[in-house]
């Protein structure tokens, strides 16, 4: 040993590293032998849920939950033909269960499904108005608590049984839940619905003064097929559905919230003719002031739009006419906002978040007013200023009529 002390020191170091490796293999062995794979779920054993509907049972307590589960094998084929070979088998499978809570209903699905339900990819939770009238949070709690379920699932309201929505034809898509997703994402081309996901809902529900809104989806019969239709907005106050806004009022709501991203306004011209203007950009500024007990709201909307269609033979492309158009569109927008305000005040539901604005920008005032916010909201004075600029005419100036009908 004395002859080569360094050699031994060297070997020691070597083996220490070897020990580490062995150590690691032992660890691996332990894991594999321990039976492992507790949370494993193989892809082929998953039932991927894309849509969930929550409904109340016809009688008795609890919830009735329906699922839209994708049949992967039927949906395959990058070329887009329906179904690999089945053709007749629908690419989705609708399942319906019930239980005293939503969670138990979800678990009960395992009694009917050969595969485990997998919720992480769920696109939308659709609750029926009955549930919404009884209280939404009790139905929603599971979706917030469960680790698989996401806060970015869309939350929708449907007047009938949600299973109809899930079972409806999906239009160009293969799965209606994916269609719902696309319908909602395309809201910016109409700005007639307001998308809400579970996270948004929770966030607004946490605000003491605000009321929530939910988009409404319904099924419409077209040529014998049941198709989906987005239709207005439900108003939820204190977690209960209290009323609904139609498309126009929804637009008004979006104006105030500054969420208008596109869409069109149609204005009435003399002689019953109409012109439709497309909204390009829109910006909203809201200011809420509380002077003593009086709440004053200032809403300022700036819109840039373009002439999209006209039904009159007049030449609307002159500067004077364009100014007139802008004023008319401003009037329409103000009407929309007024309509929404009227509805909201009727329901005493602060869907615009005026109270929250006070909380954020004038905390003392909020503390003063929060106790009787409903009253203050209903009595709020709202001042609306709309500024429209028609920037564009499209590709033509005046309509193509042989005779000149414009000013000469």
């Amino acid at each position, binding site marked *: *040993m004395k002859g*080569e002390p*360094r*050699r*031994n020191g*060297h*070997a*020691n*170091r*070597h*083996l220490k*590293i*070897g*020990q*580490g*490796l*062995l150590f*690691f293999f032992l660890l*691996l062995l332990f*894991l*594999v032998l321990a039976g*492992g*794979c507790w*949370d*494993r*779920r*193989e*892809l*082929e054993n*998953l039932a*991927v849920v*894309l849509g969930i509907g929550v409904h109340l049972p016809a009688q008795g307590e609890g919830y009735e939950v329906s699922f839209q589960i*994708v049949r*992967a*094998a039927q*949906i*395959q084929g*990058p070329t887009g033909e329906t179904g*690999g070979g089945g053709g007749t088998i629908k690419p989705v499978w609708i399942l319906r269960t019930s239980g005293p809570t939503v969670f138990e209903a979800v678990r009960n699905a395992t009694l009917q499904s050969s595969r485990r339900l*997998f919720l*992480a*990819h769920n*696109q939308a939770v659709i609750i029926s108005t009955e549930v919404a009238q009884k209280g939404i949070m009790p139905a929603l709690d599971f979706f917030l608590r469960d680790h*698989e379920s*996401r806060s970015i699932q869309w939350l929708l309201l449907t007047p009938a049984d949600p299973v109809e929505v899930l079972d409806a034809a999906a239009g160009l898509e293969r799965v209606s839940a*994916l269609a719902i997703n696309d319908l909602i994402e395309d809201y910016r081309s109409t700005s007639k619905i307001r998308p809400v996901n579970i996270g948004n809902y929770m966030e607004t529900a946490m605000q003491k003064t605000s009321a929530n809104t939910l988009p409404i989806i319904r099924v419409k019969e077209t040529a014998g097929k049941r198709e989906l239709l987005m239709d207005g907005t439900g108003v939820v106050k204190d977690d209960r559905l209290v009323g609904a806004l139609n498309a126009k009022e929804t637009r008004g709501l979006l104006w105030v919230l500054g969420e208008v991203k596109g869409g069109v306004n149609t204005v009435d011209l003399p002689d019953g003719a109409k012109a439709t203007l497309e909204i390009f950009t829109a910006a909203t500024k809201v200011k809420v002031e509380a002077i003593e007990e009086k709440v004053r709201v200032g809403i300022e909307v700036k819109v840039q739009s373009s002439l999209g269609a006209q039904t009159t033979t007049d030449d609307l492309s002159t500067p004077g006419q364009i100014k007139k158009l802008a004023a008319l569109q401003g009037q329409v927008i103000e009407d929309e906002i007024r309509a929404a305000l009227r509805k909201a005040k009727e329901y005493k539901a602060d869907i615009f978040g005026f109270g929250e604005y006070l909380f954020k920008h004038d905390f003392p005032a909020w503390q003063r007013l929060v106790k009787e916010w409903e009253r203050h909201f209903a009595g709020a004075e709202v001042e609306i200023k709309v500024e429209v600029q028609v920037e564009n005419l499209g590709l033509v100036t005046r309509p193509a009529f042989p005779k000149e009908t414009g000013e000469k």
Partner: protein
Amino acid sequence: MFEFLRRKLRLAHLRKKQPAPRRYRDLSPDLQTNLIAIRRELGASPDLITRCLQLGPGVASTGALLFIDGLIDQQVVNRDVIFPLLNRIEEGKRQDSEDFLNYLAQKVLAVGEIKKERELGQVVEALLEGDTILLLDGHGEALLLATKGWEKRAINEPDAERIILGPHDGFTENLRTNTAMLRRKITDPSLHFEEMKLGRRTRTGVVIAYLQGVANEKLVEEVRTRLKRVNIDMILDANYLAEYISDAPFSLFPTVAFTERPDVVAAKLLEGRVAIFVDGTPVVNTVPALFVENFQSPDDYNFPFYYATIIRWFRYLAFFLAVMSPALFVALGSYHQELIPTPLLITIGAATEGTPFPLVVEVVLMGAIFEIIREAGIRLARPVGQTISIVGALVIGEAVVTAGLVGAPTIIVVAITAIATFIVPDLLGPGIYLRLIYTLLAGVLGAYGIMLGALFTLLHLASLRSFGVPYLSPLVPFSAGDLKDVVVRAPIWAMETRPRLIGWSRLQRQPVGFTLAQEERKEEKEKDEG
């Protein structure tokens, strides 16, 4: 438990006794005795040629030339040794005088290197190395004539390290050729070679090459001591030494680098590293070897720097893919399906519909099949090897998917892994192990398992050193200046310093930016004088 193993190993080391050095006698003055003695040493090997000759014309002396057939240059022996010995000796020389051998060496023999040797053992050794031995009757000394000359392979490009642009020469099996090639790359007196013979029976020439004043003196000394400790009977390749001298022989990661390219060796020497040449193999070891070196290719320096940088990043990505992609696939596919975008999940789900095995089994199985196909492709003759690849890739892959045994995504992942593997060939070995370990861990604990594996690998890598230099440097310990050849490949004119932890004895490589070489040299001279 492992301590026992360790002690046993240590004892085994001690028990191995040093073989007692063989006693050699001196040569006797009698020619016949010497010839018999030499023949006895070598046995009746037919390649030992003994040519007895009568020196002349001036003197009447008998002598004998001995050489090994095939190790010498026959033409040189005939023309420059035998012919002068027979014809060129002047008259009047006393053939039994002490000076006679000197006279022969100085005036008669036309051979470059001649040594006098009196010990039989040395004579035999020289004979085996390709010298021609001249024994004279009546002299107790032999002349060793350097007439080495044997068949050599021509210089061609190494198969394992292909490049597109740049020098295409590679080392050969001949030590002298190799050192000469290096000399031609670095024409600087500070390039020092130190030769030693290692391997008790192979007596292989091993040469340490370094740049005096650039390489750290302690590093050279450490290489010397480690080489001296190598006690082995044969050295047939550079790896025989590498396994002996590496810092962490049990580690998966190579702490000694290999190359067959003179330009690579030259570049590494100029960074302050030490190269170890081994006779009989074109492979040269360089130390210290760092982790990031595995990702550097000579092409990086032969192409414009912006191109080299992006290619290097693709190499990092490829290594990551080669090690991680099967594990990530298993983790995503059987634990964290929520991370897969919905449309992709549906597509994958459809493709794996009805496969009987868990994903981890599929991946490990297909990975193993791939490794077998790869090995088969290497071992077989080239045309057959290609057939194997085609059969493996197309037939097995396609059939397995069609039969529904394995999902198509698995095949895709394994194929991506396979291709990525070849991009960093130096880490092929560690790659296989890491891939397997990570995949199994992912199969048991999903992404958490992969993270644990990665943590372990990180700790292990951080604990490694190669000849005193932390293996992960310059990443950790972090040295920002050295990232110029890691994160990017900086322009050549911007790489003005050597890696800090390797070349710290003389860090500056060149002046910053552009300076005229003449001026620089003058300045340097002034500095040296001052």
